[in-house]
């Protein structure tokens, strides 16, 4: 066991996934609280054709260009969803399902083209972007995650107050002059940086989990926004460490699913044991009642 824990590759990968999951927890809290958590799912799926396209254009698997392709397609997906829901009677639910599946379908079609074409070498690694294989992460992948997460966190800290007001009271935020379009763009930037750089570690299909689950865990333990953020971030990081360890120590276990199962375990525990959880809810309610009649 100690072999794994002290090995250099494991440390690199673990640092990368932990930073990613921490930022994911913070970024996800915004969309979960706004009731738009599945947009992350659609964007996650939609980034995949971006990865394949930039591989086709540039010709090599290079961390930065692939992430750039992912970001561009993610943005296109986001604005397609916005346009469809705004200018037709199609609901968000329908638009999300349409965009995520058709963009992913495009990714599959391009992928089959690349794989059947002898001009493109080294296509094997592209599959890692679907389910995530952190074991093959390079140090450049980890640097990219750290840079992108730093930008995300910085944006989050700079605009913390605006974000908080925008989430909890959109009407008030409009009256004090916070630009709605700017806020949407800001939230999109923060989220998409996490998704695009996390593809290699967690995969396009499942990445939405590291956005939603930490946020839900945070909300189960606290009602205060900063506390929710911190609990979310740290439970994400803990799960990332556990998941990466399981994936490295066990054979044939993809990292993304391992991280997600660890997060789910924390979530299930929280659902039962947290103050608002199922087991303690009765006691919690009783206490609330006492407070009222004291």
């Amino acid at each position: 066991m100690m072999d794994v824990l002290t090995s250099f590759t494991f440390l690199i990968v673990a640092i990368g996934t932990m930073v990613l999951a921490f930022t994911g927890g913070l970024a996800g809290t915004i969309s979960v609280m706004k009731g738009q958590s599945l947009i992350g799912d659609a964007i996650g799926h939609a980034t995949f054709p971006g990865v394949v396209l930039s591989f086709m254009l540039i010709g090599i698997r290079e961390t930065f260009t692939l992430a750039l392709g992912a970001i561009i397609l993610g943005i296109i997906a986001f604005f397609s969803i916005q346009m469809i829901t705004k200018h037709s009677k199609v609901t968000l639910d329908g638009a999300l399902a349409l965009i995520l599946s058709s963009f992913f379908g495009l990714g599959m079609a391009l992928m089959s083209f690349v794989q059947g074409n002898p001009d493109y070498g080294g296509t094997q690694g592209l599959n890692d972007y679907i389910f995530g294989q952190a074991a093959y992460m390079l140090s450049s992948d980890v640097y990219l995650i750290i840079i992108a997460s730093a930008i995300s966190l910085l944006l989050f800290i700079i605009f913390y107050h605006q974000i908080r007001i925008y989430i909890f009271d959109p009407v008030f935020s409009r009256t004090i002059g916070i630009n709605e379009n700017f806020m949407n763009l800001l939230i999109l930037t923060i989220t998409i940086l996490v998704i695009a750089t996390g593809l290699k570690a967690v995969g396009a299909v499942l990445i939405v989990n590291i956005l939603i689950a930490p946020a839900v865990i945070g909300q189960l333990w606290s009602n205060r926004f900063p506390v929710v953020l911190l609990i979310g971030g740290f439970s994400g990081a803990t799960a990332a460490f556990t998941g990466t360890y399981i994936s490295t120590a066990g054979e044939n276990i993809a990292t993304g699913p391992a991280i997600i199962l660890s997060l789910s375990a924390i979530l299930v525990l929280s659902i039962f044991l947290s103050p608002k959880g199922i087991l303690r809810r009765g006691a919690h309610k009783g206490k609330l009642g006492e407070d009222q009649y004291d």
Partner: protein
Amino acid sequence: MIEVLLVLIVTALATSLLGVFLVLRSLAMTTDAISHTILLGIVLAFFITNDLRSPWLILGASIAGVLTVYIIEVLSKTRLIRPDASIGIVFTALFAAAIILISKYAADVHLDTGIVLMGEVIFAPFTRTEIFSWSIPSALLQMSIILLINLLFIIIFYKELKVSSFDPKFAFIAGFSTTLIYYILMTLVSVTAVTAFDAVGSILVINFFVAPALTAYLLVKRLATMIWCSMLFAVINSVSGYFIGITYDLSIAGVTSFVAFITFIIVFLLNPNGFVSRKIRSLNQKREFNRAMILMLMNEESHQSLTKSEIISHFHFNAGKFDKHMKYLIFNNYVTRTNEHYTLTELGEEYTHYTREKYDLPV
């Protein structure tokens, strides 16, 4: 090869039939969740039977699908987690478990992650079944049976489906069990998704469910028409997806999904009430409004005779726009021009008078 096309079309028909009701009830993402989690059912049943064509797989997958719907409901009912967040959590967790099980224990068999992603409709004709001494692909037989079941379900429960989709409260008062209809629908969705699994995989099947129905939803208002329309789009998408896929040697399911998106976008942009015609209409309205405003301004006292720069500064027009409006107004004889000054003609006076009457403005 025509058999591949047939399998694809029958799959698209069976899925898009149910898709109509999924779209109307905003269950698209729930269906997406089901299409992911049936994989866990398939994997677990596969471990027991060791046969990918066993009917137990369909049973296992359907149970997994219905269980997903149930867990999502229970989680949302605790009010601890929002419905959309619980969808996102449940399906990713179950799908992750399935992926780990596949890669750890089933990597060497037919069930690999490639099929999960996009199926392999192209291999469908290789597994065959004899029926009435005809040899047809098993997938075609299975999908046809599912199509028939879905069709029967919709015909028998048409009224119930209609009422509970459009007015669940009335359905409740009228004594329909909306919950029962809902669970039957979701069971059929699971069964259809698992049967379509071989052909289109578990992620793209959601596209086959909702894309044709969404496209039809943009075009028509009546439920029956929407069902026909949705089936028509399903056929159009799969036929074009098939031929593009075959010609360029691409994943057929992948291409079909993207073609479905293109069809949707074309209808979205070009339908009579679509994006383009709405934009044109609003531009026309804006133009007419601007012209009317110019006339109304000149009808006011002390504004009877105005120069170009006065009008421009009043409305913040740019010069080109002003010239275009004025050319129209002069051509249609609403306004005359004398020495750089514009005045209303008799027709213009009449127009403004009529407008004041129409909108109850002081004459």
